């Protein structure tokens, strides 16, 4: 690639690449995000390449829809980032028609090539279907139609491994704009004015952080990107890093210019190997083109970027723990002040934002603050990406304007509850967030509304739960997670979460007492008020919110020793239905505890005192005669 020595060359590359893309007869974008790769999209890509190579002079016709008839007989096959519709993967998008094929298999490739690409026919079984309708075009699928994809705009539409593609979409134009048209303080003011709030959890005003760093006396300053997306059930940042890495890098560079930083670090969790390799490649390409390094695009601005891999500690998502980890120490938070903006990485002033926050920056610079503030509520403007998972029909990565209601997200975009189940709860914000129930569905998704409800956006994981989920067990699950991940530095978090976990374990084992609920509340308040860092302070939220919204389930576990969702093993009671049992003795032979007895050809019986609730009998029974009672 040409060295981008000045703004003119950047513009030329943009125009040239865009022209090349427009001239291709057809572009086939095969999703190469973590999800689709797991479904075999790598092999699908190879096969499609083979097919095109075998037919180099193929006459491609696509009816009247082809906008560029006769320009160049060229088919472009690319690996793209995550399209977001992970449930339907592997996904294949065909441009310019905008067709989206879902659940593509290796054996479909020949048909796609010979029918869709050569003859312009649609293949029905690969089209997305919902409520009896077929949707050949991606943009018309309800899952996409109701979204506003700004941060994720390029994800799935460009080849994440080629920087020119990003440049063709207007990439690095925002950087050029600030470098050649704006003073650093103007950039800070603009971000401040836009009211952009940190997408990583608390929703702190980004411009304010930048302003603080820019005001420090110390002139060695750092930009750190928090890509340690550790909340279980969240993968927005992973998709940005994999699908559009340059957008986030450009955001970091704009931040560096605004606050006068010389170096930047991206901290990515080790569980994201693909994101790490894509970022490394993106950095290498930017360096080669002169977009990273000395005198970027001929300006006075110089910037270096490093990548650090996490090593499996959730607490490193906390700012001061993250910088400690980059420095080569145990990742433990420290007492503040001094804050990260004063003494962050290597004790120097540091701007620390997460991936999605940085990815918002270039479009604010390019389109202006008025445009940005026109999206979503005034105090939480812009869009937010959510990872929609759990018992919902359309799982995947979505982006909606702030202020969209939970109902719209779960039922309109997510398509409602999977397998005809009933909605029970939605967990938002991971281990630092809370569980909301049906009466909360009209709540608007923005920082302030959620905080009022005792939940938080966190990094944006939305895990939908149906009536097969036990809320007490969910609370135990999160407490187990937090307890495991507590770094141990402060007593409230280290000891408090352990005691809370013990109580919750007791309750799910059927050994709880009513006094336990008061004790849980007391401990939760104590931890929230006294823990050292944000993770400790929010550790009790999943318990607090389930206690508030689903208190009856706790009481049921304690008083009636019953788990209505049949999740808690200790409370299961297996029974043999006399109408169905044929007396074959298979269950008795499979029971590891010797708890089943009976005569051949007569109804067998389970001795519940001996039963260890393992469920071996239930799966062994050929007549579907064994069930959990209740």
């Amino acid at each position: 690639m040409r060295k981008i020595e000045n703004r003119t060359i950047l513009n030329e590359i943009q125009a040239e690449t865009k022209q090349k893309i427009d001239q291709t007869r057809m572009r086939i974008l095969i999703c190469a995000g973590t999800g689709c790769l797991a479904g075999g999209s790598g092999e699908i890509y190879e096969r499609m390449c083979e097919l095109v190579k075998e037919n180099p002079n193929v006459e491609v016709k696509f009816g009247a829809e082809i906008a560029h008839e006769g320009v160049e007989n060229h088919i472009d096959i690319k690996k793209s980032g995550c399209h977001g519709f992970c449930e339907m993967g592997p996904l294949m998008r065909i441009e310019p028609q905008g067709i989206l094929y879902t659940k593509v298999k290796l054996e479909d490739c020949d048909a796609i090539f010979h029918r869709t690409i050569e003859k312009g026919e649609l293949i029905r079984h690969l089209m997305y279907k919902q409520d009896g309708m077929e949707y050949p075009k991606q943009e018309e699928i309800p899952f996409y139609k109701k979204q506003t994809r700004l941060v994720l705009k390029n994800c799935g539409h460009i080849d994440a491994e080629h920087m020119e593609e990003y440049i063709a979409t207007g990439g690095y134009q925002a950087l050029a704009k600030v470098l050649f048209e704006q003073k650093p303080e103007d950039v800070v003011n603009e971000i401040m004015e836009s009211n952009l709030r940190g997408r990583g959890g608390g929703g702190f005003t980004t411009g304010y952080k930048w302003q603080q760093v820019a005001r420090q006396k110390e002139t060695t300053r750092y930009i750190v990107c928090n890509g340690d997306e550790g909340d279980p059930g969240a993968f927005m940042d992973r998709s940005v890093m994999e699908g559009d890495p340059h957008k986030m890098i450009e955001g970091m560079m704009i931040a560096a210019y605004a606050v006068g930083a010389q170096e930047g670090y991206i901290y990515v969790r080790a569980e994201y190997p693909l994101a790490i390799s894509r970022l490394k490649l993106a950095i290498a390409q930017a360096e080669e083109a002169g977009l990273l390094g000395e005198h970027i695009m001929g300006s006075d601005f110089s910037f270096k970027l490093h990548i650090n891999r996490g090593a499996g500690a959730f607490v490193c998502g906390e700012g001061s723990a993250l910088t400690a980890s980059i420095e080569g120490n145990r990742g433990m938070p420290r007492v503040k002040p001094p804050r990260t903006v004063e003494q962050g990485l290597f004790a120097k002033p540091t701007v620390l934002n997460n991936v999605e926050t940085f990815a918002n920056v270039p479009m604010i610079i390019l389109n202006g603050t008025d445009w940005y503030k026109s999206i979503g509520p005034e105090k939480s403007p812009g869009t937010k990406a959510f990872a929609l998972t759990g018992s919902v029909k359309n799982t995947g990565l979505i982006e909606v304007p702030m202020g969209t209601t939970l109902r719209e997200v779960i039922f309109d975009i997510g398509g409602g509850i999977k397998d005809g189940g009933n909605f029970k709860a939605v967990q938002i914000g991971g281990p630092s967030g809370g569980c909301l129930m049906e009466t909360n569905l009209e709540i608007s998704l923005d920082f302030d509304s959620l905080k009022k409800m005792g939940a938080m956006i966190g990094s944006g994981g939305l895990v939908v739960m149906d009536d097969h989920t036990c809320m007490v067990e969910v609370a135990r699950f999160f407490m187990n997670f937090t307890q495991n991940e507590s770094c141990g530095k402060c007593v409230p978090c280290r000891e408090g979460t352990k005691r809370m976990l013990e109580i919750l374990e007791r309750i799910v084992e059927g050994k709880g007492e009513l006094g336990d609920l008061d004790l849980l509340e007391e401990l939760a308040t104590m931890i929230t008020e006294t823990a050292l860092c944000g993770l400790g302070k929010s550790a009790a939220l999943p318990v607090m919110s389930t206690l508030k919204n689903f208190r009856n389930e706790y009481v049921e576990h304690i008083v009636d020793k019953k788990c209505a969702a049949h999740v808690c093993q200790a409370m299961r009671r297996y029974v043999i239905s006399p109408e169905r049992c044929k007396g074959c003795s298979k269950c008795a032979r499979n029971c590891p505890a010797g708890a089943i007895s009976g005569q051949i050809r007569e109804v067998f019986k389970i001795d519940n005192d001996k039963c260890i609730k393992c469920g071996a009998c239930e799966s062994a029974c050929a007549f579907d005669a064994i069930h959990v009672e209740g």
Partner: protein
Amino acid sequence: MLDQAYYDKAQEIIEQHGVAQASLIPIIQDIQTEYRYLPPELLSFVAKQLGINEAKAYSVATFYENFSFEPKGKYIIKVCDGTACHVRRSTPILERLYSELGLSKNKATTDDMLFTLETVSCLGACGLAPVLTVNDKVYPSMTPDAATELIQELRGGEA
């Protein structure tokens, strides 16, 4: 005492990252990638080369879950127990793998050094829950039976 080749490799990795405290974690990560575990002798060696005391290096290596002083199996299976996988029933998959491999919470690696079984909090592949990975390859929408088949397949490849 480890073979000299181990120390030479470690030295090579140190030189790639540079002698600084901040290089400690990347260095021991690369050593672990190389040997699938972090030989304690090499941690001491790295500490000495970087000029930091051994206790400090040890405190860092033990803090992070990814580092293991015990050799790991050829196939490292990570069962995701993130929220999305958990509500889509990842626990029965883990239990099946424990019984299939004769492992438990306290015993993570099989005696033949073929399999190591771990749980992780989230692999970020929530859309495909429940998932597991074998040496970083993601297996989507798992069930206990599919896990059994996978083990048989991996074992078959070894025979």
